[in-house]
C-alpha cells in the first residue's frame, strides 16, 4: 500500500481517472436497462390506467382496470387459485424428494456426477418440448401412460387425463416436478457439500445414527437453502405460463385454459387478455402489475415461513 502511494506523483488525479472509468464501465448496463426494461415498465404502468386496444384512442379510466380485476373478474381469482393449487401440488414434492435424492447422492461413492447430470437434463430442456412430450404421453387414445397402465392391469380403460380439471392440474404439476426435481436436488447437494466434514465426524463420535444426524444436523443447516428454493419457486411459480399453455397447444386439444379453465394461470390470462382475444393492453398491464404486487406479498410470506423469525 505504502509503496503504491509513494510511487505515484499525483494520487488524487489517478483516483479521478479511475472513477471516471467506473462510470464508463457501468454505462452500457444502466443505459441498456433504462431503454429495454425501465422505460417499458413505466410505459406499461402508464397504460394500465387507460382503456386501450393498441390502435384506437386511449381512454383514461383511472384505477378502474385494477378495480375490475379485483372485484368484477372472477376469472382472475380462478387463474390465481389455479396457479396456487398447481404450486401447492408441486413445490412440497420437489422439496422433499429433492432433499431425499440429494442425501442419497451425497452418500454415494460412485456415479455421483452421472446421476446429477442425468437428472439435471429436464431443467435445461425447451419448455415447448416438455409440453409436447407430456401432451403426448398423457394422451387418452395413444398416450403411453394409459397404454402402460392398462397393460399392467391397473386400469381397465384409459383415463381422460387432459380433459378433466383435476387430472389436468395434476399433469401440469407433474410437468413442473419433472422439470425442477433435478435442480432442487443439485442445489441441496451443493448445500450439503458445503457443510464442514468435522460436524459429521463429531456426530459419529457421539454415536448418532445416520437418521438422527440428518434430522439434527443436516436439516437445520439446510434451512437457508430451503428458504432460497421456496422463495424462488414462489416467484417463478406465480409466473407460470409455458408449461400449462404448451400442454394445450397441440392440434385438436388446442384450447385456452385447459378443461373448464382449470389450468389457466395468471400469466396465461394476462397473455390472453392483452394479446389474444380483445387485445386489451391497458387491462393486461393492470393484470401484470397486480401480479407483481401479489408476487411481492407471497415471496415475503414464504420467506418469513421458511427462514424463521430470527431473520
Amino acid at each position, binding site marked *: 500500500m505504502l509503496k503504491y502511494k509513494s510511487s505515484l506523483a499525483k494520487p488524487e488525479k489517478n483516483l479521478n481517472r479511475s472513477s471516471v*472509468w467506473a462510470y464508463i464501465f457501468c454505462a*452500457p448496463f444502466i*443505459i441498456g436497462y433504462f431503454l429495454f426494461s425501465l422505460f417499458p415498465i413505466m410505459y406499461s404502468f402508464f397504460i394500465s390506467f387507460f382503456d386501450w386496444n393498441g390502435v384506437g384512442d386511449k381512454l383514461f379510466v383511472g384505477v378502474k382496470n385494477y378495480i375490475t380485476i379485483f372485484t368484477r373478474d372472477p376469472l382472475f381469482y380462478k387463474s390465481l387459485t389455479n396457479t396456487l393449487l398447481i404450486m401447492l401440488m408441486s413445490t412440497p414434492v420437489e422439496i422433499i424428494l429433492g432433499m431425499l435424492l440429494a442425501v442419497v447422492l451425497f452418500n454415494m461413492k460412485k456415479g455421483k456426477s452421472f446421476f446429477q447430470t442425468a437428472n439435471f437434463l429436464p431443467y435445461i430442456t425447451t419448455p*415447448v418440448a416438455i*409440453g409436447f412430450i407430456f401432451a403426448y404421453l398423457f394422451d387418452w387414445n395413444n398416450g403411453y401412460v394409459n397404454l402402460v397402465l392398462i397393460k399392467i392391469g391397473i386400469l381397465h380403460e384409459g383415463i381422460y387425463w387432459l380433459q378433466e380439471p383435476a387430472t389436468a392440474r395434476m399433469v401440469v404439476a407433474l410437468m413442473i416436478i419433472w422439470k425442477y426435481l433435478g435442480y432442487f436436488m443439485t442445489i441441496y447437494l451443493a448445500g450439503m457439500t458445503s457443510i464442514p466434514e468435522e460436524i459429521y465426524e463429531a456426530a459419529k463420535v457421539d454415536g448418532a445414527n445416520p437418521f438422527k444426524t440428518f434430522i439434527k444436523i443436516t436439516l437445520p443447516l439446510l434451512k437457508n437453502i430451503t428458504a*432460497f428454493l421456496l422463495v424462488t419457486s414462489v416467484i417463478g411459480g406465480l*409466473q407460470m405460463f409455458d408449461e400449462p399453455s404448451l400442454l394445450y397447444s397441440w392440434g385438436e386439444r388446442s384450447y385456452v385454459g385447459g378443461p373448464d379453465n382449470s389450468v389457466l394461470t395468471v400469466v396465461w390470462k394476462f397473455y390472453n387478455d392483452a394479446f389474444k382475444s380483445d387485445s386489451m393492453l391497458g387491462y393486461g398491464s393492470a393484470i401484470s402489475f397486480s401480479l407483481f404486487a401479489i408476487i411481492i406479498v407471497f415471496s415475503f410470506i414464504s420467506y418469513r415461513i421458511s427462514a424463521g423469525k430470527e431473520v
Partner: protein
Amino acid sequence: MKKLLIGFIAIVTVLSILPFYLVFMMSTYYSNDLFKGLPFLPSDFLLKNFETIFKTNFIQVYGNSIIVSVSAVVLCTLVSSLVGFAIAKYKFKFKKVINNFIIITMMVPMQISIIGYLLEMKTLHLNNTLLPIILVWVSYPFGAFFMTQFIKDSIADEMIESARIDGCSEPRIFATIVVPLIKPGIATLATLVFLWSWNNYLLPLIIINKQQFYTIPILVSTLGTAHRNDLAARMCALALSIFPVIVVFLLGSKTFIKGISAGAVKG
C-alpha cells in the same frame, strides 16, 4: 435400506431420461408405425423425417435461434462483466446505489415490462426483426449480479493496482488482466444465457408474427397445426431443437452446475 434408496434414485433417473430417449427414438420412425408398441429401438425413417422438416423453413428458424442466442450471450457477458468489474473493484460515488439497483431489479418479473416493450419496439419499427428478443439480454440484472460476485471473489486488488503502476490503461486492465481471470464465471453465465434465450417462449410469441423471424420454440409450437398427422416428423423437429441445448449443457455441465448452485449456497 440402502439398496432401496439407490433403486429409488435409479427410477427417478430413468424417468428423467426416458422422455428424451423416446423423442429421439420416435424421430426415426414412420408415423403410422409409432403406435405398434413402445419405440425402444431405432427404426430407419430418420432421413425421410429430416426431409419433411427441411421442406419447412426449419433451417432458417434454426439459424434465427442461433443468431439470437449467440448475440445474447456475447452482449450479456460483456455488459455484465464491465458493470461487475466497476462495482467490484472501483470506488465511486454511486457504487452502492447501482449495486442495490441491480439486486432490486433482479426480482422484477418480465411481464410488467412486456407490453411497454412491445409498443416501444413497434414505434422504433424493430418488431419483426430479431433485435427485440436479443436486446432484452443486454442489461440482465442476474448477469450483472453474478459477475460482480465472481470478480469480487476471484481477482485481488493488488493485481489491478500493480498494473496501474505499470501504466496500464483501465480498458487494458479489463481486457488483459480481468477477462482471462474470470473465464470460468463467463463460461457459466454464457451457458445460462444460451439456455434461457434458446428456450425463451413468451417474448418471441408476443413480439414476432412473421414466420421468417420465428425462433425454434415458436416454430415447434406451431408445427402442431402444420403437421398434424406427421407425429414422427414433429418428434424429429423436437429432437433437433433439444439437441444443441443438451450439447451446450454437457460441455459445460461441471462449471455450470457449480455456478448455478454457488448463488444459492451463498445467498
